[in-house]
């Protein structure tokens, strides 16, 4: 906390003679602009403007641009058509039609997954909502269309191309602890104990929690998965 300062009283309302004569003021102003001009001229590489489109702005690894649908190792979409992103979307721009996947362990998949890029407000809520790490946003912001129909992106336009540079930051995507690149399915070193705060609160209320007591080792791999991993590691 501190006081109040009267900035009006600090600046004299009366101008001096030289200030009233215009010319010194003009010269002074020219000096400031000249300094900027020369500095820019001799450090042209550090100019704040860029020569778009030859030169592109380097956005951060969290940039919220065009969406992609990520894939599993076998090329199928990670999306299980749970509708959570469509539900979270404040602009209601996602359309999903779910289908039954022939492979039993995948259960569901999106037959249709459309995003209307003109409705989208690029808020990233779909990425936050996805429980399967299936939708990310990329650093691609160059979205221009000739008509409205073109702006509705289906799976063909949304599916991630192979060889995505994950390490440099593709764009806005779920934030994992650690180095930020660890995908789901390998969280053995997670610092997070799920549900910890909640359990403590319920306990304070005197609720019996014996059936959910203790998170146990986080996502302990099944013996079969462990054997598989060991085999891969050689």
């Amino acid at each position, binding site marked *: 906390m501190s006081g*109040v300062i009267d900035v009006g009283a600090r600046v004299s*309302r009366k101008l001096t003679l030289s200030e009233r004569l215009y010319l010194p*003021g003009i010269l002074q102003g020219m000096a400031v602009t000249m300094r*900027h001009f020369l500095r820019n001229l001799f450090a042209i590489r550090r100019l704040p403007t860029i020569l778009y489109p030859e030169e592109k702005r380097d956005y951060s690894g*969290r940039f919220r641009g065009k969406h992609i649908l990520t894939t599993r190792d076998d090329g199928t979409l990670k999306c299980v058509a749970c509708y959570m992103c469509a539900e979270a979307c404040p602009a209601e721009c996602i359309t999903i039609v779910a289908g039954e996947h022939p492979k039993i362990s995948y259960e569901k998949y999106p037959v249709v997954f459309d995003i209307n890029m003109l409705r989208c*407000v690029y808020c990233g809520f779909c990425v*936050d909502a996805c*429980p399967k790490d299936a939708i990310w946003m990329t650093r691609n912001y160059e979205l221009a269309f000739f008509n409205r129909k073109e702006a509705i992106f289906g799976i063909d336009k949304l599916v991630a191309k192979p060889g995505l540079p994950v390490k440099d930051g593709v764009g806005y995507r779920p934030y994992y602890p650690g180095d930020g690149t660890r995908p789901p399915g390998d969280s053995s070193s997670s610092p997070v104990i799920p*549900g910890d*705060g909640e359990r403590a609160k319920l306990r304070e209320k005197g609720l019996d929690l014996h059936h959910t007591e203790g998170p146990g080792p986080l996502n302990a791999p099944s013996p079969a998965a462990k054997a598989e991993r060991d085999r891969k590691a050689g």
Partner: protein
Amino acid sequence: MVAGRENGAARKTLLSTVEAPPRALSPAAERLRARFDGSPLGDRVEVRDLDLPTVEVAPDDWPAVARFLRDDPECRYDLFIDLAGVDNAKRPGRPTRFEAVFHLHSVTRDEHVRAKVLLPDGAEPRLPSVVEVWPAANWFEREAYDLFGFDFPGHPNQRRLLCHDAFVGHALRKDYSPGQRWFFAEEDLRMPAWAMDTEEKAGHFETQTISIGPSHPATHGIVHLVARLNGERITRAETQIGYMHRCFEKMSETHTWNQVIPYCDRLNYVSAMINGVGYVRTVEKMLGVEIPDRGRLARTILSEFSRIMDHCVNIGTNLVDIGGLTNFWYLYQPRESIYGLLEACCGARLTVSYVRVGGLAIDVPEDFVARSRALLESIPKFVDDVERLVTRNRIVRNRLGGTGVVSKEQAIAWGFTGPMLRASGVAYDVRRSRPYDFYDRFDWDVAMATDGDNFARYLVRLEEIRQSLKIIRQALDVFPASGPVNSDDWHVVLPPKDAVYHDMESLIFHFKLIMEGIRVPSGERYEWIEGANGELGFYAISEGGAGPYRLKPRPPCFPMMAAFEHMIVGSTVSDAIATLGTLNVIAGELER
């Protein structure tokens, strides 16, 4: 959170019983009660204690109560803050269907109060206008007429404000279907009655009525100014707005609490971060959620950066309007680097959507403190350059000095807040009068001036940039190097992704939050913070549903734009342009 939930449950059981036991009033409400008891109005008002002391009154008594609230030496609620209409059609337990909710502030006593006018059912909703008590009520009443169909007998100019003249119905009533479309043709445009008056039009050839805007470079956004000129001088003016009305309030009623956040970015889009913070603070207060220090400080730092950005844009564009283009480039450079910082935090420059109820979307990046410190180094250089170019420049002095003068009394009567009010000699700053986050622990000064002209506003804004830098520097010093930014209450905040992928319980919390939304206990709340151009408030009503029952932002520039047509009478057109620049009117926020 737990407390908030229990509170909500308790209230519900109270509603089902016959009579609620009388609750002890807070000291402020008790004082108000005593004050009313000592006056002839004592038995005609009901004083309640909600988040603010609340006076409930019938429409017939409203003008007398309004005068009492303004004039009584122990009340002196002279600054009109907000008027929000409420339609209780889907809100059981309220005595009447329509309510007009007023928020007022006392400059001398630094306090807010709420007044509710309960409009009886069975007749058209009607309450006497209080424009004579608070001139600032003018546009607010027009807005309530437009969106709720409230009739204000005695209002000088009761016309639609935000919706166009071919609009049918009142959009914010609960029985208005949002899918309807009303087409507006050019011939539907209604000019003010005086502008069409043939007698006014006749006369000297130098007297004419012109339209400045809606699309005019000087209006910065879409504002239509109808001005009557005598030579160069404006003799009468009226502003018509509504070209950017995007139904923020109606849309938020059909979305969840979190889904409103991206809309908030589009209110004052020059300092989008502050809107988000103001909104989620309201919801967090209703929930009773506490945010970790790191999250709060990150919000504070980015809000102050946004304030700097807002002032840079305002000073820069204002100087462009009066012919000084260079400053614009110098001031846009810090803005550019602040945008870079915001983008590194949340992934977007303008529409940040960074805050969430209960914290932030994601943690700040690792180089957050270093980048912010680098900005603290670079911004003052540009500000100094502008000061060197502008402050003692004779042309600027001639254009800004002595133009657009608003006296202290006028500023209060017109409901000004923020730099506009401070430049007129009232040091009202929400960060000081009701410190939130950590503003009471930082060492900073409220910048004010007494001249009330355009130049004083420029000086106040320039000083506020420096004070904001000072606040950021202190906030960075105490910024925790690590730790959570979000509350750990998973009824409100999404669990960490890592947990969602691998833990059933977390996934359930995640699912409930996405599919059902946050459950905010029923009740109402008005929370206000210092926006870049004044007091930014959010009045929210919850009925325990997934989204707001009613959400009314208090846009700081709304009363200033309303006063614009009075400020420019007698000045020249070019001075009016300079004045419009210093008002800092952001169309997105003005018309929502």
